[in-house]
Each structure stands twice: as C-alpha cells, then as structure tokens.
C-alpha cells in the first residue's frame, strides 16, 4: 500500500516534470541514501549514516513510522516544496517535489482573500460606527429641538409674566391719575388710592423677582454667583418663610407647619439671603401645587449640618416630569400655574454652591418630598457679643449722584423723611465739583452716568484727597464689578434697587466708625 502510493506519487511527479529529490533513512532515521537534487532545495550535503534531523530541521518530531504529507513547505532555498514521508519495512522515504508553481497561485489567491476579509471587517466596523454616530447625532438633534422648544416657551412664558403685572401697573396708575385729579378728596378716594398703590407695589415686586430670577439664572450659568456667608439668626430665616407663606397656604386651606430643632437666636454662619431664596422657592412650590392637605417644613441642625425636608400632600410629579423638572425653563404643562420655570434650576444651583445636593422624591398623586443638607458652622460665642448698632443719623449730609431722575427723586424724598440733608447731582463731574465745595458725611454714587461716570468721579475724588466715604449703587451684582469698585476706593457697594433701610444702616455704620 505504501509502496504503491510512493510509486504513484513518484510517477505523477515525474510525469509533471517536477524536480524530484529524495532521502531514505533506516528505522532509526539514519540517512542511507540521498538523491542528487536535494541540494537544489538548499539542504546541505548529508553524509550517510547521520541522523536526518541534524541536517533537515523539519524532521524533528517525526519517527520512522510517520506517514504524512506536507503539501507546502518553504525549503531553505526559498523554493516551496511538497514533502511526503512514506514509511516502509526498511525505513522511511522522504520525497521532495517542487511546489513553487502551486505556492505562487496560492499566494495570490490567499493574499487577496485575506486582505478582502480584513477590509470587509474594517468596513463593517466603520459602518457600525457611522450608524452609532448618526444615532447619537439624532439624539443630540432631538435634544437641541427640545431645548429650542423650551427656550421658545420660556420666552413666551416670560413675556406673559411681564405683561400681566405691567398691565396692572399701568391700569392702576391710570386710576391713580384720575383719582388725584378729583378736586374733592374724600376719605374714600384716599382709601382707593392706597389700595391702587398697593397693587402697583405688588406688581412691581413681582417684576423685580422675575428679573432677579432671570439674572440669577444667567449668573449660575456663567459661574458668577458668589455665596457670601455671614453671621445670621437661623431661626429667623425659617420664621420669615413661615410669615411669607402661611397666608397663601391659609387662603388655600392648606395646613402649613414649621418644625425646627433650634430656637430663635441660634446664630450660624450662612448666606441667609440665598438660603431664604432656596426655601422660598421650594416651600413656595409645595404650597402652590398643593390644593388640600398640608405642607411641612422640617429643619434640623445637628453637628453643624442643617438637614431640611419639605413634605407636601399635593398632586405629586409623574416619573416623566420628575426627570425633566431640573431642565431650565421646563414647566409641567396643564397645571395652569405660571412661573418662569427657572426657580428650581436656580435653587438646585445655589444649593450646590452652598455645599449641598437637592433630592426630590415624588409620585403622581402621592405628594412630594424635597430634601437637602448644608454644612452650617455655628457662630462662636465671642462673636455674638457685638453691640447692636444704634441708628442715630439726624443732621447727616448726603451727596447723591444719580442720573435717573425718578430714582433720585424717590431717594431724596425717602432720605428727607429721615431728616437727612440731600444734595442731588446728575453726573460724576457735578458730584466731583460738589464734593470739593461742600463737606458731606456720605456720598451715594451711581456708576453709569453721562459726562463722567462713577468710576472716574471716584478716581478724581481719591486724587483730590477726598475722605468722605463713597457708597456705590450698582445694578450689577457681579463679583468683578464689586472688586473694581473697591479698587476705586468705595466704602460700600449697594445693589439696585437700593432700599432706604440699607442706606440708613450704612450711614449709621460709617458715621459711627468715623
């Protein structure tokens, strides 16, 4: 059988005129015969009687009984050969034939096939990536469309919000105008006027809070809000919320409860106005969206950590909407309750700035729980012993530089009521001149004025050796504006609208220091 196959093989090779070579070994794989052609394939001259594997590397691992065909083997000469091991009774025949032709063909085909497969694979990956990228883009597009939609609804919401109080202001001022034209001023007319004025004030305050919200939101976005912790009475903050929101809850027959584990006079270091703003928003929302049942505000101060929880029995928020309420401008549709849709975004940002994290748990028809924790250092006892400033500002002389005559008139009138003597000028140059000719106790300086602005005036005053404290009144609450004003030597920085109480407090501080 083996001999026959060898015969067949040899015949075929001969027939094809392949360059045939062979090697015979005995049972111990010692070389007994070598054909001439073997050196053509790069094998060395092999002395008879030697171990075949010492001269032919590929023989390592085979024994004399191995019957195997090795169709394509690169020989030392580089020519590809076919090798057949054919065992027989006497030993092993190792037959070499030239397979370079076959190898060349195979090489071409296999190279193409492999490269194609690699390319196809690459293509599949790229296609997959493209698909994913386009999916991602689609998602982003959708998000952009949603943002644009929200922006639009925000704008129309804001416009609407402004229109309502503004119309009411215009309406009531018309009424006031008519009422004050009336020559016979009876008590009833006065009462009317007062209620119209209250309405105007309410609407104005509403607009102011709208504007403040919008500004805060812009600043949060631009990382420009600075938290200013200062000593404050923590209980007072919560009591304010109660005072502000109880009436609203009362009109809706919603029970409002405040629970704290601290007493009035509990002094901490916190930015009370920002904390108040957050609480007002969260508790305000709770009251707004609760139509029956209760709203509870719980505050606990333990080891300088303030934990706050607001629990209501209101409508609750659906899962869908819960995911969206943190998006700026988002408002749950069909509640019929207007707002800017910014309150919660701002509150969340502020709480984060103060070192906390807002957590909202809610289910539709199950009420809502909002909670957060803030680090809250207690004020040390010695700092508490500061004397209360006593307000005694009679006979004070104030220079007011303000180009807006309405604001100026108002301030002049309010200061006048306090027996403070006010000189009003309408730009920086006039302020400078006045300060050089007359002695004042305090200068109130607007920043943006024609002819010479507030900064320039302050600079000139500084050069002129002015010692009178200057308080800047600015519409901007940005920290860099504060800093700049300080560099020009201002003693205080008031943000508009400036309340008379602030001026009085300041006047008192400045004059008591002096």
């Amino acid at each position: 059988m083996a001999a026959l196959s060898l015969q067949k093989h040899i015949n075929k090779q001969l027939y094809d005129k392949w360059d045939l070579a062979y090697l015979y070994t005995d049972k111990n794989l010692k070389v007994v015969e070598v054909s001439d052609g073997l050196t053509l394939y790069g094998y060395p001259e092999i002395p008879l009687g030697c171990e075949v594997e010492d001269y032919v590397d590929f023989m390592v691992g085979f024994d004399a009984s191995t019957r195997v065909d090795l169709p394509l083997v690169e020989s030392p000469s580089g020519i590809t050969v076919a090798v057949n091991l054919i065992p027989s009774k006497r030993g092993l025949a190792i037959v070499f034939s030239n397979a370079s032709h076959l190898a060349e063909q195979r090489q071409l085909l296999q190279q193409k096939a492999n490269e194609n497969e690699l390319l196809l694979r690459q293509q599949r990956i790229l296609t997959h990536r493209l698909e994913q990228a386009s999916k991602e883009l689609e998602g982003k597009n959708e998000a952009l469309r949603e943002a644009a939609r929200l922006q639009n609804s925000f704008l129309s919401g804001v416009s609407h919000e402004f229109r309502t109080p503004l119309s009411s202001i215009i309406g009531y001022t018309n009424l006031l105008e008519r009422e004050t034209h009336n020559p016979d001023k009876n008590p009833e007319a006065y009462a009317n006027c007062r209620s119209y004025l209250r309405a105007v004030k309410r609407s104005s305050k509403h607009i102011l809070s709208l504007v403040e919200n919008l500004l805060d939101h812009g600043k949060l976005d631009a990382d420009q809000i600075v938290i200013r912790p200062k000593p404050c009475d923590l209980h007072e903050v919560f009591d304010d919320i109660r005072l502000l929101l109880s009436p609203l809850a009362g009109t809706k027959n919603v029970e409002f409860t405040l629970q704290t584990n601290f007493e009035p006079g509990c002094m901490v270091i916190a930015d009370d106005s920002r904390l108040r703003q957050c609480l007002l928003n969260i508790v305000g929302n709770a009251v707004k969206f609760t139509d029956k049942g209760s709203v509870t505000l719980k505050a606990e101060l333990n080891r300088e950590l303030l934990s706050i929880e607001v629990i209501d029995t209101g409508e609750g928020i659906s899962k869908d909407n819960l995911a969206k309420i943190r998006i700026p401008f988002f408002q749950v549709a069909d509640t019929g309750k207007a707002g800017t849709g910014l309150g919660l975004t701002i509150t969340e940002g502020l709480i984060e700035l103060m070192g906390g994290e807002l957590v909202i748990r809610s289910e539709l028809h199950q009420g809502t729980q909002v909670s957060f924790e803030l680090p809250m250092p207690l004020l040390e006892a010695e700092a508490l012993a500061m004397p209360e400033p006593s307000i005694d500002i009679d006979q004070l002389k104030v220079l007011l530089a303000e180009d807006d005559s309405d604001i100026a008139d108002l301030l002049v009138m309010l200061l006048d009521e306090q027996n403070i003597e006010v000189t009003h000028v309408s730009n920086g140059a006039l302020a400078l001149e006045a300060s050089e000719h007359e002695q004042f106790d305090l200068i109130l300086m607007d920043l943006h004025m024609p002819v010479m602005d507030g900064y320039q005036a302050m600079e000139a005053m500084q050069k002129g050796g002015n010692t009178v404290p200057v308080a800047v009144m600015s519409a901007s609450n940005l920290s860099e504006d504060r800093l700049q004003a300080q560099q020009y030597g201002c003693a205080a920085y008031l943000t508009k609208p400036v309340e008379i109480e602030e001026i009085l407090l300041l006047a008192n501080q400045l004059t008591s220091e002096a």
Partner: protein
Amino acid sequence: MDKKKVCMVGDFSVGKTSLTQKFVNNVFSEQYLTTIGVKIDTAIVDETKLIVWDVAGRDSLSPINLSYLVGASGIALVADGTRPETVDDLHSIWDTVEKRIGKVPTVVALNKRDLPEWSVTPEQIQSLKERGWIVFETSAKEGVEVEGLFTQLCRLIQ
C-alpha cells in the same frame, strides 16, 4: 543538543510570522505577506534547539494543515488583540489541534499590544487562563513579551 518542534497556530494575519521573525531574526515588517503552507525556522533557547513551524492561518483547521502539527512538542496559539473574534477562535482551534496531536504544552500570544484598537476583554483573558494557558500580551512590532513567549514555551516542553 535537544531539539523540539513547536507550532505557531492562529487565524490569518494575527502575527504568527511577525512574532517568529522578531524572535528568530529580530526583524519586523509592516507589510502583510500571508504565509503559504508552512515556513520553518530555528532558534536556540536555553540549550534547546527550537524548530518553529510558522503555519498559515488561512484554513488552519483543515486536515491538510493539521498534518503540519504532527510531532509538535508545544503550541503557541496566536490571536490579534485588535480583532477580539480571533481570541475567541483560539478555543475551537485548540480543540481541533488536540484531537490531532493530543495535549501538548501551550502558550497564548495576544498580539499587536501596541495598537490603540486593542480590545481584548478581561473575561476573554480569564477564559484563556482557565484552560491552563499562560497568556502573553505581545507586540511583534515593538518586541514586547516576544522573548517571554518563546522562553516560556521552551521551558514547558523541556
């Protein structure tokens, strides 16, 4: 000197030839030239002459190609770390090899470690280790762990 036959086995273009050439001749080529049949090289490791059979990856499981493995003392399974499917293929390749030549010492090279497209998962490596194989993350291009691979294989079969 002791002589041992070892075979490089794995899918096409995973770097069998590159690893062999790096180890034997310290050369590397970016160009891909597929191996036809088998190329045999030798190297001396720890007093042992290793006869390295660099077998074509294409059709590596065909009976014809399996005949190249007869007489092997050890196997280096090679996969391309940037083509994770070639790593998974190692399991079935080895099962077929085992049927033909029985259990022989085996090491694994996850090659092309230098490429950023490297994407072998820890689970894949774990499943290779569970079969008792020592896994090398090699780069024929940068010569990383190439020595380690062959030296380890040589130690296993000595």
